């Protein structure tokens, strides 16, 4: 067996006939080479090749595979991770998919979501746009979960006037585990892509830790708020758009605030993203030089993940004023996650506003980051960028926070 990165030197891993692996020291051992073998390695590029399985209904669903837990499997013989998915693999695991339509899987990337960059967003947007224009009935993007909400936001801005939903889906437990959440999530994603009345980019993930329903979140309003639970994705400052109930696979809308499907000829693709945008988290000992550095390095946008209502240590204000003067767009969000920025309440906030820092309303920091990156790449004049940033475009801003948007925790009763 190939050795693992944790194995000690001088240990060989043997697979016994009963399937177990054991590590045995080869010190003073007699070793005879019987046969040579090798472990297949995979590149990060899938090259966009596609596989196809015919289904029992007329619909055609394109699944764009970008990598992550949902498409990777551990090969039981070697323990190696196979990072790509074919339509056959998918049907082998979820035969019910065939009842929903023919399945096409496009092997675009095989990367873990932490390795995604704005460049990847652009090509995913292009592939998705092309698929929509080609007339497929459903589009689903399989994606690693860590940065899935960033990509979802990116697609939400890059694909204007969507004629159908674009559903991102991931899993918190890989598909090689019988307890994987991927089958339910994928089924729900496909069902949503075919049935939803909206033309928005959404994320379909487990709603609870039971297999009872999958939530369909608005891409610009969703966040991974747990490192491992299958219900890690939850809508923040908004409610999910819909849910798909299992085992009956029933799709129901739960939010009546959504962008309706547009006509296909209205679709506009604006897939560019500015890479010189940074997120700076405010913290007690923050050094203003961090901001100076970004300005000196010609960054075009800075998203501050401020404290509370949108604050940062006074000592940074001078640097931020300079940044704005030099043409950097600086925006403010809050690290409290829930709630809205309001920079009129305290002196620091007012000073920041005067320095030209833009309030990000109730946008998540990551959404603000993607939006700013998209605006800077697609609009030439700073005034449009600034005006559009504070304006709601795809419901990334929610002006009404009703009480029930805030979750409840266990308080001893």
């Amino acid at each position, binding site marked *: 067996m190939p050795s693992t990165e944790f194995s000690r030197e001088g240990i060989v891993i043997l697979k016994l006939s009963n399937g177990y692996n054991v590590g045995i020291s080869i010190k003073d051992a007699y070793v005879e080479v019987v046969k040579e073998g090798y472990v297949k390695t995979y590149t990060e590029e899938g090259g966009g090749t596609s596989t196809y399985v015919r289904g029992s209904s007329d619909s055609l669903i394109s699944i764009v595979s970008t990598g992550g837990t949902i498409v990777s499997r551990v090969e039981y013989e070697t323990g190696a991770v196979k990072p790509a998915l074919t339509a056959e693999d998918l049907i082998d695991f979820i035969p019910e998919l065939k009842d929903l339509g023919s399945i096409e899987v496009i092997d675009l990337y095989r990367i873990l979501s932490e390795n995604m960059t704005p460049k990847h967003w652009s090509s995913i947007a292009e592939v998705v746009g092309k698929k929509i224009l080609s007339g497929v009935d459903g589009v689903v993007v399989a994606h690693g979960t860590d940065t899935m909400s960033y990509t979802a936001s990116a697609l939400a801005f890059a694909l204007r006037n969507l004629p159908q939903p674009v559903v991102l889906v991931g899993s918190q437990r890989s598909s090689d585990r*019988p307890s994987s959440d991927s089958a339910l999530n994928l089924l729900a994603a496909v069902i949503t892509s075919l049935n939803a009345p909206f033309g928005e980019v959404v994320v379909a993930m487990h709603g609870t830790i039971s297999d009872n329903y999958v939530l369909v979140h608005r891409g610009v309003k969703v966040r991974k708020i747990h490192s491992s639970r299958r219900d890690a994705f939850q809508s923040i400052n908004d409610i999910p758009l819909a849910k798909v109930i299992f085992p009956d696979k029933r799709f129901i809308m739960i939010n009546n605030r959504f962008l309706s499907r547009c006509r296909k000829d209205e679709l506009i693709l604006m897939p560019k993203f500015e890479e010189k945008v940074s997120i700076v988290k405010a913290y007690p000992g923050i050094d203003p030089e961090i901001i100076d550095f970004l300005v000196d390095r010609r960054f075009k946008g800075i998203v501050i993940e401020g404290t509370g209502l949108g604050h940062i240590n006074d000592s940074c204000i001078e640097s931020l004023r300079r940044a704005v003067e030099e043409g950097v767009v600086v925006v403010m969000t809050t690290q409290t996650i829930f709630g809205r920025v309001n920079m009129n309440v305290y002196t620091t906030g007012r000073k920041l506003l005067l320095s030209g820092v833009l309030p990000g309303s109730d946008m998540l920091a990551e959404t603000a980051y993607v939006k700013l990156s998209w605006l800077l790449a697609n609009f030439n004049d700073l005034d449009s960028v600034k005006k559009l940033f504070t304006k709601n475009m795809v419901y990334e801003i929610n002006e009404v926070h009703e009480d029930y948007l805030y979750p409840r925790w266990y308080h001893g009763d």
Partner: protein
Amino acid sequence: MEINYEELGLRVGLEIHQQLDTASKLFCSCPTKLFEGSEEGVTRIERYLRIAKSETGEIDPAAIYEYMKGRKIIYLVPRGHVCSVELDEEPPHELNREALTVAIGIALGFKSKIVDEVHVMRKIVVDGSNTTGFQRTAIIALGGEVLDDEGVVRIQTICLEEDAARKVGEVDGAVVYNLDRLGIPLIEISTAPDIRSPEQALRVASKIGIMLRLTGKVKRGLGTIRQDLNISIKGGTKIEIKGVQRLELLPKIVEYEVMRQLKLLEIRDELIKRGVRKEDITSNIYDVTEVFRDTKSKLIRDKLRAGCKVYACVLKKFKGLLKVEVQPGRRFGTELADYAREWGGVSGIIHTDELPGYGISDAEVHNLFKFLNVDEGEDVIVITVGTEDRCTRALKAVIDRARDALSGIPKETRVANEDGTTRYMRPQPGAARMYPETDIPPITIDSRIINEALKYVPKDPNTVYEELISKYSLSPEISKQLIRSPYFIYFYDLVRELSDEELTPQYIASLLTIHLRSLKSEGVPTENISIEVIKDVLNTLKRGEISKDGVIQILKEYALDPKKPIEELIKKYSKVDVNEVIKIVSKIIESNREELIKRKDKAFNIVMGLAMKELRYRVDGRIVADVVRNLIRDLGQG
């Protein structure tokens, strides 16, 4: 049935699973204690497991896939016993070092060779008893042996693994598990199929059990040790039998399984003789509700009223075979019913080999055969009542099982019943699909952990036995019983802390064996008596505050009601002095004076009876007798 096992080529292998008594579970920091409260209000979650068809490792992948499909699993999540790891909501933590050390100690005791690096694996488990769908397990050591009168039984592997969730019931076709037990460390000792007789299975299992106890680091009580067996005979099939909790059952289970295999082979031969071919057993399932429209059978009538229907399938040329007894009290029809229940979730089946019966009339049976146009003299019709979906699944399973009868004995995993018979549980996985547990780095076994493990290496039971006789002057019989007693490991502590001229090791040994066993045979739940309680009571005895008779009585009452504070019982049975006896006896005489005078010849017995009621276990009976005798002498004179 007299069976010559040697001729049959009987081969039995054992897998002993014993829970380790560690502070925390194998892959998380939850305690290893089971939840004892009410299930009401406990959080429940619902899951489904699935596996890619190509990954089942099955001879018949479709079977296992179908088995898992749509099978709802409900997990109970009692607070304080379960965290995100058991819920499969968080990756496992590192392997519990204490458990690993104990496992190594045990392996050394069996002369097993410890591996240099431990690799945790995932073994696919499809019944929902693991939230992940697999059990985490690792080989700690290879080889080793158990010495037995009939020869050496080899040990193949010693594994450390996580215990599964505890099945607590079924509702509407969903299985309910409590997650409290999931993750408790288990050591699994697997022997080679070297066991040749039912009795040898018992001897080897109990020997392994004793060794495990001698480490002092294993759990006690029902369910903490479980035996699995694999049993085969020449020309038969290797059958797995799971979850035997009582050691004494092992010989019976072996015997009954051999009997079952022989009977199934007879059935096969008979089918071949009758010229039945696989294709004769068609997959057709019929709605035969019509036949039972006006049935007198309450069983069927009630269900029809509830909207159910009656479905049937035909087993061509099977007549009479479903009546064949394959194990005591279990017919071939029972085997088919197991499949119907497991796969369709129906309550059972009715077949024409057992009709008329269940209130179904002769006429109805005739009609049924006529309705389906099959031969009453040759064929069997199996019916079941319920919803279409469930009945179809159930009868499909019956048909498949009937087809398998043509090849003999299907590969199955079975589960033991209380009486030593077994029933079908699920299809047997092929070569177990094992995946590396990529979430847990391999663990190097170095000399430090081996040295640490030395303190858990169990002594050989023979050495222990001889030591008890020579060092503690116990009789051979008591020594033997003591080694098997669940309290054995405390014997040394008790002797060290308590023994003196009165409280001899022999007394302690007989308390832990003869006395507790006789309480148990009276039906007293002696498992309620913890070693702390025994220590408390013996300390009181040592101080002279209670009598030896009192010790047994206190333990008995405590076991019957363990919520009662032990101090209360000790007070109740505390020794009294002669003055107190005189006071009590006088009072009895005073309040019964008239009757005693009337029945003077019986007076002693009457007073004695009443006095002992109050004084039993608190004072020697002879002292009471003396006092009574003295005091009734004055009777009638005053």
